[in-house]
């Protein structure tokens, strides 16, 4: 790692740490930014690096939310009674119940989601291209519909978790750092993963899976492992979101297919697919764009977002990173062999 890189990383880390204290009012937005980074990075693991464009990663987010909530509540109350519309009684959690529940719940969310990824992957990884995208989208939509009809977990009523017990601003910072830690962990994980043989193998799957098959690469195994790693982190992010949002319901919050489910993809495309920094940059740009439009284009923000998606996908296909790679290759240590590039014509 060069000196410049170390400085860059240190600077980013410093900003990450001080951000919630410098901009206390924006705590929640900053936390959401990390959420976007997490889901974008994990989406890119399968989408950008492995070539499997899932539209259903939101499934893990929603499932993570519900698993975290169910586990946390289940450790103290009967979930069915807790969620029941008739449920009388005001519920309360002690601090210890809250934090133990949160720890176990979030972890369980991650683990459960990675198991789900293996099961779903087993069925869907035989699909290619648009079929995979639509198939996974279908899984996410179906899951949302089924959960919304499942009374035990609250059905369409949704489910409410206890409020953070401590001081309010402290709580905000707490959730910010939960997200930020997860985000940094995902980033470092991806950075390491893409340098291994495994990383090269999933790139091979992306570029030509038939060839990878023919070379004896365990394509299905690698695909399942990749997706379940991604699902683990998304599940954790979902679990944290559950505690941060306190109340959530299946269709619009948990399995929000056409919101976060698509946004994560747009973030990646905006930043540059198949790159390490692309999803991070894309998520940041997208988040800012989103917040701005919905401040100043009240009512039109969705039109603006739709337009952003179209423009990104259609006119800006390689994203920010792709653009930089084209125009400033020297930033990335790529040497252009003048002679070689002439010969290739």
């Amino acid at each position, binding site marked *: 790692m060069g000196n410049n890189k170390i400085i860059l990383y240190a600077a980013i880390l410093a900003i990450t740490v001080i951000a919630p204290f410098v901009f*206390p*009012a*924006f*705590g*929640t*937005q900053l936390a*959401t930014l990390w959420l976007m980074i997490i889901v974008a990075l994990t989406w890119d693991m399968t989408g950008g690096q492995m070539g499997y464009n899932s539209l259903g990663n939101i499934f893990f987010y929603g499932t993570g939310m519900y698993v975290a909530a169910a586990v946390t509540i289940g450790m103290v109350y009967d979930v069915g009674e807790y969620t029941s*519309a*008739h*449920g*009388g*009684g*005001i*519920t309360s959690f002690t601090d210890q119940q809250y934090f133990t529940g949160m720890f176990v719940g979030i972890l369980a969310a991650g683990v459960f989601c990675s198991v789900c990824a293996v099961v779903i992957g087993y069925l869907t990884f035989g699909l290619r291209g648009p079929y995979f995208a639509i198939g996974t989208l279908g899984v996410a939509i179906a899951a949302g*519909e089924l959960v*919304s*009809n499942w009374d035990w977990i609250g*059905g*369409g*009523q*949704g489910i*409410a978790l206890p*409020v*953070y017990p401590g001081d*309010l601003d402290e*709580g*905000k910072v707490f959730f910010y750092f939960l997200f930020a830690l997860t985000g940094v962990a995902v980033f470092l994980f991806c950075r390491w993963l893409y340098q291994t043989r495994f990383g090269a193998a999933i790139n091979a799957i992306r570029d030509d899976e038939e060839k990878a098959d023919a070379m004896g690469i365990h394509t299905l195994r690698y695909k399942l492992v990749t997706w379940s790693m991604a699902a683990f982190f998304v599940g954790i992010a979902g679990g944290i979101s559950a505690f941060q*949002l*306190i*109340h*959530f*319901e299946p*269709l*619009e*919050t948990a399995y*929000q297919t056409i*919101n976060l489910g698509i946004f994560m993809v747009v973030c990646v495309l905006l930043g540059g697919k198949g790159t390490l920094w692309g999803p991070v940059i894309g998520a940041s740009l997208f988040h800012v764009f989103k917040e701005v439009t*919905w401040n*100043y*284009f*009240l*009512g039109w*923000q*969705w039109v603006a977002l739709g337009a952003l998606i179209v423009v990104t996908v259609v006119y800006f296909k390689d994203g920010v990173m792709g653009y930089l790679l084209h125009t400033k290759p020297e930033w990335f240590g790529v040497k252009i062999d003048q002679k070689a590039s002439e010969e290739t014509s």
Partner: protein
Amino acid sequence: MKKLSLLSILMASVSLLFSQASLAACDEIHIGSAISLTGKYATNGIHAKNGYEYAIQKIKDAGGVMVDGKCYNFRVTYYDDESKGDRGATLAERLISQDKVQYMLGPYSSGLTKAIAPVTEKYQIPMVEAEGASRSLFNKGYKYLFAVLSTSEQYLASAVTLAAEMAEKQGKKASSVKVAVAVENDPFSLDIRAGVLDDAKKYGMKPVIDEQLPRDLSDMSAILTKVKLLKPDLLIVSGHSKGAATAVRQIGEQNIKVPMIAMTHCEAADVTGKFGATANDILCSTQWAETLSYSDPIFGTAGEYEAGFKKAYPEYKDKKVPYQTAQASAAVYVFKDAFERAGSLDKEKVRDALAATDMQTFYGGIKFSEAGNNIAKPMVLRQIQNGEYNVVAPSAFASHELNWPRN
């Protein structure tokens, strides 16, 4: 007309940008509200927003809010929650931490209120809400949440009582009444279902159909076919505006013969305007009706409120002013009352004043229970009779006889 509403959104956003500069004489009390300007609740969200704005104007015209001898006007910062819970929660956070609002007006729908209430509670921001009726809002022990409207289990419960009365009049047992319930799968409608089933149980009635409507409902013929087969005596439908519209249309189309049909959101869906005679004899629950005899010094009588509002918002001139608008205005009025009684802008004092509210308004009596819901105002049931909404229950308010059975 639609263009107008579009225009009003734009105007609102523009005025939002410049409003700081334009107001002078009185000081401001800054209130925040996340409301559905887009998404599936947009229509009702806009109704509510108009209600808020109308009340603010009326209060301003009447001399503003007098707190400890000083005059104030309300100013509301709105954000669009896109009819989505997580959005609403984020926006509430934003209103509180970035825009520094100290008081909140509620969003539209129980689902959104459910998402926002934990946030306001967390920050101890008093919120008066007018559009979240689900009683599950009021068993969480929230101390900063106040609702001017009746809780949703009451919406159609009186229909069950009516059906029981009718059965007894026919010399049958109340328990012989067969009830069919089709409600949307959202917090509000599920609550209505719970209320209806509770009441039905009290009479020993049997639900023969108990199904949930999907959120993007466009066809309920599958349920109506079962209705034909199982011949219930009472059909309950609840699914916001689109549920009402779809139900009335298909009930007419499929010629459903049920002696009594009761639903919510008839006015909001404008079923009389859209479907004419088909809508006749349908029972509609309402929080408020302009024919009721409530009144207060700011808005006058219920009828005067209706007239005044139509004048201020001409796009409503051909239809009923929906109760969603009236209760939104009432919520603002409750704030005014509480501020004046508190005699301070301190939010804890205001909260206590809110809790002690006991007032009469054009919208009805308002007195909050421990849990924050309004216990001073009954729901009324109106029946569409020849295109007119006539109050038929409870008997104390009834202006017309119930037409039974429906044909």
